[in-house]
């Protein structure tokens, strides 16, 4: 099916369902009482503005328009690190986080894995990917297989390189630590959702003398990654990295949409501060109304 037709069908379906659902829900009252929550109109406006922004940029990116994204410093390190591992003849360890596949961090981690695996496949460096959930395991296996195929080396892919390790957080960490000590990977890459195990992993990697690249959106773990790893992607840089590496229009579009909202939010804050000061100096009294817009009535 051609792409534009698919898009048309999708948009048509969206519109139809939105209409049917909203109309039916507005009229189909199961009990008495207000149906629509008017105090959530501010949220509705934000959701609409946000969705339009994200969808607009995604559409633009899909049309092939090049959207500018700034370079993420830690990213060049990935290729460099793969090169080093090849020279040393030692494997690369890639952990896409310890969260399940329904978490955004894991999705970003898994999608960067695809790009990393492609480089790895080209260099023919051994790869180890421990997965904590069977769902993540399956996704990683498929993505690695695909990457090896894209690199033109489908036969060199070793299915055992993506491994399922015990489901519990620390059992998983202990097992990964065991791999680090036994198989001594030259490079450890941690991109995904990480929690308390971040330091355990990074310290053990340090002891094994590996180059380490880390990234997570969990702010509470970032200080340790910064302390113990060579490169760290902080917070959203993880998502940006995923977009930057893959040049994927969808991811890029999403980021551009979010950037637009950030500009709007910064403006909202600055206007708020100015109004607050004007209110304080008795110039105009508009601040209470303004701040009220951002509050559920």
């Amino acid at each position: 099916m051609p792409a534009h037709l698919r898009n048309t069908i999708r948009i048509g379906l969206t519109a139809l369902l939105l209409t049917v659902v909203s109309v039916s829900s507005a009229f189909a009252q199961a009990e008495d009482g207000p149906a629509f929550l008017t105090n959530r109109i501010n949220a509705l406006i934000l959701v609409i503005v946000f969705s339009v922004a994200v969808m607009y940029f995604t559409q633009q990116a899909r049309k092939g328009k090049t959207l500018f994204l700034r370079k993420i410093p830690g990213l060049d390190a990935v290729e460099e690190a793969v090169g080093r591992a090849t020279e040393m003849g030692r494997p690369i360890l890639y952990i896409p986080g310890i969260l399940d596949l329904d978490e955004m961090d894991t999705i970003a981690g898994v999608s960067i894995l695809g790009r990393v695996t492609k480089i790895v496949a080209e260099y023919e460096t051994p790869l180890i990917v421990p997965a904590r959930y069977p769902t993540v395991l399956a996704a990683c296996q498929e993505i690695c297989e695909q990457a090896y195929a894209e690199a033109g080396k489908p036969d060199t892919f070793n299915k055992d390189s993506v491994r399922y390790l015990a489901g519990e957080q620390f059992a998983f960490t202990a097992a990964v630590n065991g791999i680090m000590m036994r198989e001594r990977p030259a490079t450890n890459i941690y991109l995904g959702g990480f929690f308390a195990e971040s330091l355990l992993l990074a310290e053990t990697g340090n002891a094994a003398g590996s180059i380490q690249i880390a990234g997570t959106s969990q702010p509470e773990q970032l200080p340790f990654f910064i302390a113990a790893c060579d490169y760290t992607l902080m917070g959203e840089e993880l998502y940006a990295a995923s977009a930057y590496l893959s040049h994927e229009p969808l991811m890029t579009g999403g980021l551009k949409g979010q950037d637009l909202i950030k500009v709007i939010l910064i403006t909202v804050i600055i206007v708020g501060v100015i109004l607050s000061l004007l209110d304080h100096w008795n110039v105009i009294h508009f601040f209470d109304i303004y701040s009220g817009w951002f509050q559920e009535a």
Partner: protein
Amino acid sequence: MNVWERLAAIDRRWIYLACGIAVLMPFIIPVSLPVYTTPEVQGVYDAVKNLPDSSVVMLTYDYYPSTLAETEPMSRAALHHLFSKDCKIVTISNIPLGGPTIAERVTRELAAQYGKEYGTDYVNLGYKANYVAVMKGLGSSIRSIFPADNSGTPLGQLPLMQEVDSYEDIDFIFIVADNATADYWVSIVNAQYGVPMCCGATAVMAPKMYAFMGSGQLKGLLGGMKGAAEYEQLIGHKDRAVRGMDAQSLIHLLIIGLVVLGNLGYFMGRREKGIGR
């Protein structure tokens, strides 16, 4: 090899040993220093104190056994405070691994002390999967998500749960969590259902929670063992958290010393190699 290089190359196991000694020492020679109360902990205390007697409070056990040392004192202190005010307590756990078991053990032990009865004074809902869906779903109906309590008794047979079937029937939520669930309690339950809440968080989670304190979404915050110790002191039940603060002092000083020593070695090593200034 000069002294700095030798220091830099020290086996990490010596550091582990120093760490072990620092934590053991205060158990042999205790020095009890006072713990000052911070406004965040005072906020928790005041929020609970100002609840009308016999309010229905939801207490969460959103933590793994791994952080028991920080979180169990919080749960215990909260139970002391709530039971002494005759509050009705509904406990819930969003952690599959161990959460429901801890909730049973701790709540029952404290309830026995206060002579509270299961079913009328407190209920343990237990665990259901996917906390985002659970938190949102409880807003529609507790019974559709939890047909039965942790031991399998249908909710209809528990007197307390006949009056409680959604957030509308809950006056306050006391979160004790060691992970991201606190974030969702705030952004889903507080934002959409307006239930006031306070949070006992592990020290790792606490810095993030300050943003929710600042926005007024949380009424108070217990940050780690220090927060638990302050709360224990406020309610007058000094326990393991207060006793642990001595060891905290010594090991913190050790770690600060290690940072200073490590950096000293780093800079001296660089200077001797002629790098830098």
